[in-house]
């Protein structure tokens, strides 16, 4: 008898992993899984490393439509998800590598989808020219749809153009990527504010997409608001005026109220338009600020102080003019459920100032949608929209982006746009919006080239995250239009790209080849692999070489081996280094590239994505 613990198959033992389930390996590619449009991140990073910038750009463009814009501004949900961040290291600079693809790409005009001369006879109205609507147009135009875009502003791009300051996102980049879509033959009615949905519907469109965003900046009704109105500005409206150059300067002393990304853009714009003493004030403790860490960092690098726990209580008016803001100092207390309560400490103070910028959030506003046209509104006066199909309760009317779900970000607006386009296409051809949605394209292909050769760079880079070079602060503060970030050069980009772990190259285990020699267990640098008795998931997680405490990450489980044990791999920290496969004498481990492509309305427009999965 062997002393090996022979597995006792209990009813609750874990089942062998079904790696044909598209979600299993997709989840292992943390960045792609976290990306709302499921951009094939590791693939484009490899293309960047190979200097194939145009290919990298097109792969991005097909997935997320605005690589140049997003490579500078994306909220990058992929980065907090990046596996490297769990290895006592910083995530790969996924976003800025996207910018590299955009910066160094060649001419892509010949690579864009062809627009059929003969239209399919369907007319779609797109309300608002933000990223959500533009994505719908991009997906539908190549299918022969006629798209009519209604936009109250004189140019397209939505908040990307009107609110994201040009020192973060140069106008040229917006123009290029917005024009790529408009040039497909979209009929754009700029300067046309929609004041009645009913009248649009009356025009007899085959489908209507509402992508009007969340256009109303929140206000603060405290004493002095009316008297000082001339010098109190709603952040998003003020940024729009700056973008369209209606506003070119601001007072010397500026108080910004709010702690989100809008506040960061306001303060950084103010300091470029003549502000000398610009302060950001937030009611909550700093740790709870809504702004992304990197945006706060950028503001502070420019010398802008942040005052937390400051709740505004009054606008001080002297001689009929704003003279300052009075604040109550707050302190945060947490109850046993972790809920926060802000309690005034009793201390009050005044910041003298010439102007106030209010950046305390945005609301949706649909005064132009009639309430008697079968389009239901629910909580917070938001339209009732289906999460999968993006359709409202009125057939043929779809929502997406900030208009559908409240203020979010560009990449979510794009993701909604793709889904809405799929629905509109299905709707117009009389198919089910749910049952007929296209399944993702996947493939799994061995990367073995030779005995210890793989078609990807499997060696682990120990380098830390490469910082993006900036222009001198002195220079950029002088001119609103000077882009702060210079972007990586080719050499830095390569260095950063090498940090990517290639999480899409999966460890695939073939049970009947394994002789249980333990070679893979011993070589694995991060102790992922175990041969052990099966059991309930919780027990199993605890019993591994290093307990698998991150429950968001799956265990890869095999069927029983010869000794009665199972192979259990904790996917959490796998470096995808391939050492297990190099060590295995029988080839029971193989490194296989898993590709995943989220289908869009127009598969013919996903040429690069298709090449990537084939």
């Amino acid at each position: 008898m062997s002393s090996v613990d022979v597995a006792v198959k209990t009813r609750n033992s874990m089942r062998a992993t079904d790696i044909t389930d598209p979600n299993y390996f997709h989840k292992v590619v943390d960045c792609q899984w976290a990306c709302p449009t499921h951009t094939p991140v590791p693939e484009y990073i490899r293309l960047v490393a190979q200097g194939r910038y145009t290919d990298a750009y097109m792969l991005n463009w097909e997935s997320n439509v605005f690589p140049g814009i997003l490579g500078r501004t994306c909220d990058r949900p992929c980065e907090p998800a990046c596996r490297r961040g769990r290895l006592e290291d910083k995530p790969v600079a996924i976003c800025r590598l996207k910018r590299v693809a955009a910066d160094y790409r060649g001419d892509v005009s010949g690579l864009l989808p062809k627009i059929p001369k003969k239209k399919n006879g369907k007319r779609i109205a797109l309300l608002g020219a933000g990223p959500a609507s533009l994505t719908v147009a991009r997906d539908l135009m190549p299918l022969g749809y006629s798209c009519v875009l209604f936009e109250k502003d004189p140019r397209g791009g939505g908040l990307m153009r009107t609110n994201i300051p040009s020192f973060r996102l140069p106008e040229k980049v917006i123009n290029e990527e917005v024009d790529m879509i408009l040039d497909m033959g979209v009929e754009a009615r700029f300067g046309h504010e929609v004041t009645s949905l009913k009248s649009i519907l009356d025009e007899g469109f085959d489908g209507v997409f509402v992508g009007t965003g969340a256009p109303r900046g929140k206000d603060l009704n405290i004493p002095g608001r009316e008297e000082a109105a001339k010098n109190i500005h709603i952040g998003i409206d003020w940024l729009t005026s700056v973008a369209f150059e209606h506003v070119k300067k601001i007072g010397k002393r500026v108080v910004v109220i709010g702690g989100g990304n809008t506040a960061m853009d306001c303060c950084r714009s103010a300091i470029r338009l003549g502000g000398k003493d610009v302060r950001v004030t937030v009611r909550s403790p700093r740790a709870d600020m809504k702004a992304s860490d990197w945006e706060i960092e950028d503001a502070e690098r420019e010398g802008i102080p942040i005052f937390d726990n400051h709740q505004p209580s009054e606008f001080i008016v002297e001689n009929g003019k704003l003279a300052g803001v009075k604040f109550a100092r707050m302190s945060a207390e947490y109850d046993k459920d972790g809920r926060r309560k802000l309690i005034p400490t009793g201390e009050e103070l005044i910041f003298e100032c010439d102007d106030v910028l209010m950046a305390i959030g945005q609301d949706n506003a649909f005064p132009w949608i009639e309430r008697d046209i079968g389009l239901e509104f629910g909580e917070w006066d938001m339209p009732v929209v289906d999460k999968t199909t993006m359709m409202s309760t009125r057939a043929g009317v779809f929502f997406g982006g900030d208009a559908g779900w409240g203020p979010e970000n560009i990449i979510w607006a794009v993701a909604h746009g793709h889904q809405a386009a799929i629905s509109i296409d299905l709707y117009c051809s009389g198919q089910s919006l749910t049952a007929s949605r296209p399944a993702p394209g996947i493939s799994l292909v061995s990367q073995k080239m030779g005995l210890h050769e793989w078609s990807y760079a499997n060696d682990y880079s120990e380098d830390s995250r490469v910082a993006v070079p900036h222009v001198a602060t002195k220079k950029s503060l002088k001119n609103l239009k000077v882009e702060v970030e210079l972007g990586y050069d080719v050499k830095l980009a390569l260095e950063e790209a090498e940090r990517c772990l290639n999480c899409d190259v999966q460890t695939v285990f073939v049970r009947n080849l394994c002789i249980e020699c333990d070679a893979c267990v011993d070589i694995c640098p991060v102790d992922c692999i175990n041969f052990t008795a099966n059991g309930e998931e919780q027990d199993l997680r605890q019993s591994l070489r290093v307990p698998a405490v991150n429950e968001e990450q799956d265990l890869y489980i095999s069927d029983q081996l010869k000794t009665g044990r199972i192979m259990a791999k904790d996917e959490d920290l796998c470096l995808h280094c391939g050492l297990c496969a190099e060590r295995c004498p029988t080839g029971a481990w193989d490194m296989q590239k898993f590709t995943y492509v989220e289908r869009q309305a127009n598969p013919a427009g996903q040429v690069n994505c298709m090449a990537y999965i084939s």
Partner: protein
Amino acid sequence: MTYMKKPNVRHPGLRKNELGLTRRDYEGLVSTLCAGCGHDSISAAIIEACFELDLPAHRLAKLSGIGCSSKTPTYFLNRSHGFNSVHGRMPSIATGANLANRDLIYLGVSGDGDTASIGLGQFCHAMRRRVNMIYIVENNGTYGLTKGQFSATSDRVSKSKKGEANLFEAIDLCTLAIHLGAGFVARGFSGDKNHLVPLIKAAFRYNGFAFIDIVSPCVTFNDHEDSTKSYDYVRAHNEAMDRLDLVPEREEITAQAEEGQTTTVRMHDGSLMRLHKLDDSYDPRDSESALTTLRKRYAKGQVVTGLLHIDDQDTDLHKLLGTTSQPLNAVPMSELCPGNAELAKINKGFR
């Protein structure tokens, strides 16, 4: 083998021992042996044992001869002392080193060729002399490094990879060790670390000559169907005699051991070794019964593993010779080399 070095990055949740070290701190260079070689698993078991015993690496010396097995000290404990000697001569190096510095822990790693063929004489004398060391044979029944000739531990019934018959009887190293007075004799299997690691730990705690014969499949030359040292064969014929627990001195003994099935041995450093016997037909403290069991089981084609024999008389070469209690490098020069006058006196005594 792999060409890439094992990255330094490690699991942030890796356990630390009393010295604040992780298992990774006991590793060596990346192995250049064939992928799947049993020897690599033994290296991993040694790493695990040293980590669990909180051994400070600089108090340990690794000694070996020639062979794939003898190469392995490069692949573990790269912060320890090491000596890679001539083929079959590791026991003399170990004896000399041990006499010179009794304070280090000596870990000899050898192969069945290195020990049972060219080094057999040296091996026997080290045991006779009760050198205080751990002596591991990574036994694959073949000369791996020289491409698969039969070794002296190949079983009579075993065939070579090409199908040639083996003409000679095997030397059973455990039997030999018990005969020659090794105080701690065990057999393990590289493919069963749960069983092997405690054996290695116990050997580290033993004062005297501790011998472990570890069956270790050679995936390249001796892992075929007609081999008795293949993964499959050993798994099918492995008979574990016992399961070991090492209870460190500092830990309270909580669970009361069931009588009869459990033998408790107090090691010389105060820790307790508990042996849960899975077979009560023999008594590991009685060498006669151990030898009988080994012989009978071997005749049945079984591969007996476990702690086969333990002798708890606390003796080693230094005790037998009555040497100084200090390592020689700590003895003052005036005592170590008392000068010409003293030499003349000694010489006079022989006249």
